[in-house]
Structures are given as structure tokens and as C-alpha cells.
């Protein structure tokens, strides 16, 4: 028996039609939708703070709506997504509202337990220091060093919890077990918060094939499948530096085909654009990895260096030599804290003198701000059009126009707002040859700093709730 698992979304904001098109043509058993990047949860946490019915991937709703007719035809198709974000129960209610009128009995599962935020103070009091994953620095020390805490607080103080005020979210990367459990309880739609991206694929494989949690080579195969499809069309010919001969307008999203022995084939729906060949698969294999011999997930540590990639047919690529070993002893945690505010403003600067003129404009802005006493924690000036997207590499020294992009960051929101008010005046009080000011002042957004850390597995427990759509409303 083989199962086919599709990757219908690679991030929150991906193509809204892709999941439906993939499900229509993919002959899928499972459709996965991956919506959480490293900092997505901090953004969703803020949404939930403002409105307790939000905080999940809003794209889930139009996507689910588009899938209703497919669920009616393909009754065995199951949907698995981490789009529950910071609020999987609210996601289930919103999804149920869309599904229940036509499919009241569709079983929706919610997986929780990744959200550590409510427990952080307790963990801190128990002596957990949330050391940085790489540098080992304790979280509270870093917050103090960055002047985000007014003063040090003793471990014994009952004000210890105040140290966590800048923290906006903290989520553990759960593994595939709770997803497998949900499916075992009959779930047809599984909504989770933070888990490893690969868990969306490993969960169904564990459920279908009944692998033991120590069948590391097989779990490695499912993990690599998940790694390959988690970024959507990046596995099927998109995001390639060799883009010239690929039809990307009609790009088909990826399908991983797995069997009980852990044999893995990557493909895409017939008749779609894009391409699946040895190169597109290898390009995604090496995407966002560190040491390829140690690819860590909560379920397994995979060795990518033993993998062979071979074309076995049109748009069909087999991966063999998949090997894994035991996973890390701790869960990885993605924590985010508020670190001030930022904005970026842009202006088009035209003319053969545009480079000098753009630099002069930026100096005028900062001189004017300095005159009213404003200096910024951080600033950056880019002249786009010269190759400064990668600063200092292959930069051009002349151009007929450049986009001046000025960015600032500061603890004070007011200071950042004041900066945004200083751009448009350049039109009448700066040099000639400027355009693009007619848009609104650039938006000021909070900065969420990323703090990867770990937590011992014993401190966490995941929970699964499965109910028919009609009962979630």
C-alpha cells in the first residue's frame, strides 16, 4: 500500500487556489497545509491578544471553503495543517462554520500543548532559564543586556515573572505523535499549533503504516517527504535559479508518495506546470538545512548525506538510502520577545547623479531628525538598483535611477513614527528628481526578536480533541 500526501501551502500567504487544485488532481490521501514560519506565531499571538477568536492562519478559511466540494466527492481525503497557530480551537470553530452546513459529521481534531506561554513563569520559577539554543545565554540575561528589562530580578523574588513581560510567544516544536493519535481517533481534519513542519507528513505515515516510534529509517523517509513538500512549489520547479524553461504560472504543487517500507517518490499532479526532476528535488533537499548529516526533528535525526535521488519517470523522482537515528532529548522551542519598533521608507531617485543624490537625501533626513534630538538604535540605508540586495557583492557604480530605502529601528515607537513623517517633505524641500512619495507614510511595526531555546520533554504534554464539525460551532 502507498499513500499520497500533498503539500498545498508553504507559508501563510501562499497561493489560495493551490490546495484545491492539488486536491482536485492529485489523487491524494492527505493534504497538508504548512503555515508557520519562525516568527509567524508571534504575529498570530498579537492577533489573539487583540481578539480571542483570532490567532490562527486566516487563510485556512477561504482554503477550507474551496475544499468543501472536494471533501464531498473524495470522502477519504484528510486535511492536516499547523494553521491552528496560536489558537487551534478557534481555528476549528471557524473551519467548522464553513464545513458544517454541508458536512456536519466531518470530524475535526485539534492538537494543543505546544503553547508554553501560560506556563513560562512557573518554568522560570522552577529554575528553567531558557538558554539560547546556540549561545547558551539565559533569556533573562539577554533581555537585561538589551535594556528590555529595567533591572535584574533575583531568582527568589516574587517579581520574577516580570522578567517575562517582553515575551510575546513561546511554542515547542511537537512531533508527529499527536497527529497520528488524532487520525487514530477518526479525525478527518487535523489542526495543530507549532509542530515540526515534517510532522504534518510523518503523522499520517505513522497512522497508516503502524510504524514503531523507533523505526527511525522509515520515519526518516517520511520526514524527508515532509521536508520536501513543506514549502509547496519549491519542490516542483519554483524558486530555482534555473527558471527559464519552467512554466510557473500553472505550477503544480508537490506530492510525496510513501509506502510501508519507507520507499519515497516525489511527484506532482499530471498536466500541471512546473517540473519534478533530480535537480528540483535536490534543491529543496538542501533548503534551509545546517549540517546535512544531522537534520533534527522531534521524531528523528535524519542523515541527508546517505540519500540518493533518481529520476524514475516523467515528473517522478525516487529517494533511497534514507537513514535516521534517535531524535534530540529535548524539544526545540521558538520564543519571541518584543524588541522595539521598525519601519522602512522608499523613494525613487532619478538622474545620472542619482547615487550621490540618494545619499544626500538620506543625510538630509537624518540631519533634520538629529536637529530635533532624534537618534535611532539602528538604521540602514540601501540604494536598490545597484545590487545592494546583497550588499558589497557585485555592486554597480552608476545608474540612471535608484530606489532609496531607509530603515530605522528603535525602542521608542514615537521616534519611529516621527521618522516616517520626514520622507515626503523631501519632495519640496530636497533635490529635484524624486518620485514615489504619494503613497501613505510607511507603516510602523513591532519587532519580535527570535529566541530559539529548548525544553525538557517531561514538562510538556500534548492534547487531542476530536469532534464532528457540527459540535465545534
Amino acid at each position, binding site marked *: 500500500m502507498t499513500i499520497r500526501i500533498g503539500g498545498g501551502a508553504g507559508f501563510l500567504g501562499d497561493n489560495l487556489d493551490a490546495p484545491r487544485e492539488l486536491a482536485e488532481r492529485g489523487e491524494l490521501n492527505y493534504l497538508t497545509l504548512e503555515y508557520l*514560519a*519562525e*516568527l509567524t506565531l*508571534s504575529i498570530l499571538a498579537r492577533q489573539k491578544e487583540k481578539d480571542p477568536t483570532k490567532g490562527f492562519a486566516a487563510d485556512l478559511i477561504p482554503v477550507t471553503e474551496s475544499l468543501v466540494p472536494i471533501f464531498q466527492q473524495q470522502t477519504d481525503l484528510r486535511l492536516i495543517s499547523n494553521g491552528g497557530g496560536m489558537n487551534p480551537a478557534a481555528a476549528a470553530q471557524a473551519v467548522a462554520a464553513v464545513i458544517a452546513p454541508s458536512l456536519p459529521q466531518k470530524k475535526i481534531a485539534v492538537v494543543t500543548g505546544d503553547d508554553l506561554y501560560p506556563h513560562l513563569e512557573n518554568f522560570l520559577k522552577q529554575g528553567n532559564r531558557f538558554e539560547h539554543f546556540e549561545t547558551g545565554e539565559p533569556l533573562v540575561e539577554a533581555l537585561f543586556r538589551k535594556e528590555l528589562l529595567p533591572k535584574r530580578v533575583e531568582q527568589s523574588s516574587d517579581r520574577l515573572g516580570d522578567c517575562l513581560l517582553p515575551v510575546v510567544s513561546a511554542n515547542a516544536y511537537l512531533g508527529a505523535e499527536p497527529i497520528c493519535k488524532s487520525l487514530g481517533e477518526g479525525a478527518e481534519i487535523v489542526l495543530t499549533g507549532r509542530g515540526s513542519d515534517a510532522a504534518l507528513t510523518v503523522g499520517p505515515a505513522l497512522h497508516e503504516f503502524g510504524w514503531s516510534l523507533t523505526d527511525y529509517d522509515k520515519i526518516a523517509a517520511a520526514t524527508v517527504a515532509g521536508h520536501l513538500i513543506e514549502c509547496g512549489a*519549491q519542490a516542483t520547479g519554483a*524558486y*530555482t*535559479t*534555473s527558471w527559464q524553461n519552467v512554466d510557473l504560472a500553472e505550477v503544480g504543487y508537490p506530492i510525496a508518495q510513501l509506502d510501508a517500507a519507507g520507499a519515497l517518490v516525489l511527484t506532482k499532479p499530471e498536466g500541471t506546470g512546473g517540473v519534478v526532476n533530480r*535537480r528540483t528535488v*535536490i*534543491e*529543496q*533537499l*538542501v*533548503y*534551509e*538545512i*545546517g*549540517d*546535512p*548529516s544531522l537534520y533534527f526533528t522531534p521524531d528523528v535525526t535524519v542523515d*541527508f*548525506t*546517505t*540519500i*540518493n*535521488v533518481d529520476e524514475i519517470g516523467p515528473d517522478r523522482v525516487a529517494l533511497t*538510502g534514507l537513514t535516521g537515528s534517535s531524535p534530540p532529548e529535548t524539544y526545540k522551542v521558538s520564543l*519571541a520577545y518584543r*524588541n522595539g519598533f*521598525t519601519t*522602512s521608507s522608499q523613494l525613487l531617485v532619478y538622474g545620472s547623479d542619482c547615487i550621490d543624490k540618494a545619499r544626500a537625501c538620506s543625510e538630509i533626513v537624518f540631519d533634520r531628525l538629529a536637529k530635533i534630538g532624534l537618534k535611532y538604535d*539602528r*538604521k*540602514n540605508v*540601501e540604494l*536598490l538598483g545597484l545590487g545592494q*540586495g*546583497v*550588499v*558589497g*557583492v*557585485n555592486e554597480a557604480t552608476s545608474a540612471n535611477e535608484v530606489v532609496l*530605502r531607509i*530603515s*530605522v*529601528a528603535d525602542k521608542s515607537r514615537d521616534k519611529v513614527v516621527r521618522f516616517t513623517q520626514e520622507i515626503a517633505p523631501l519632495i519640496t524641500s530636497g533635490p529635484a528628481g524624486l518620485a514615489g512619495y504619494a503613497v501613505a507614510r510607511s507603516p510602523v511595526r513591532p*519587532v*519580535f*526578536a*527570535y529566541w*530559539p531555546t529548548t525544553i525538557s520533554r517531561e514538562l510538556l504534554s500534548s492534547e487531542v480533541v476530536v469532534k464532528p464539525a457540527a459540535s465545534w460551532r
Partner: protein
Amino acid sequence: MPTKISELATARSGDKGNHANIGVVAHNEHSYAILKKWLTSEVVAEYFRSLGATEVRRYELPRVQSLNFVLYNSLGGGASESLRIDTQGKLLATALLEQELPE
């Protein structure tokens, strides 16, 4: 004519926090051998010196004729904190492919 890396390989880059990685996928065994010999972590570190990486490490994946470069602390703070237009290192692969091999 000097050879550009793009004649020997494709590439893909992305982020992990404040670190960037660039996967370089050679067209074939011959290209891989050339790149393995010549495209060292030192060469890549020098090419991207202006990004301020604290370390560049190279990993080999010989079965898929690929090299993986990790550029530590090279993203100006990473996805949320960086003030650069390329907060996530998405452009680095394209930039690396334009590097020329010594003749």
C-alpha cells in the same frame, strides 16, 4: 572567458534565525569535483565578507553532488529584526552563482 558558478550549478538559499544557508547543486560529477576543490568555505566567506558573518562552514553531500554553506550570523538580525530588504537571505544563492572561478 572566466567561468561563472552558474555554469556548473544551481543554488538555493534561505534562513534559520540569523543564519543563512546556500545549497549549491552541481550539474554533474565533473562540476561537483571542480566546485568541491575550488569553492571552499574561505572563498565563500571572502565573497560575502560585507554581510559580516561570524563563520562560514561548508558541508558536503557527495551522493547528490551538492555543497551546503552555512553563513552564521549573516542576516543582520534575521527575519524580524533585519533592516535589509533581503531579511531572509533569499538573494544569496543568485549572488553566489555570479561568482567567477579563477582561470
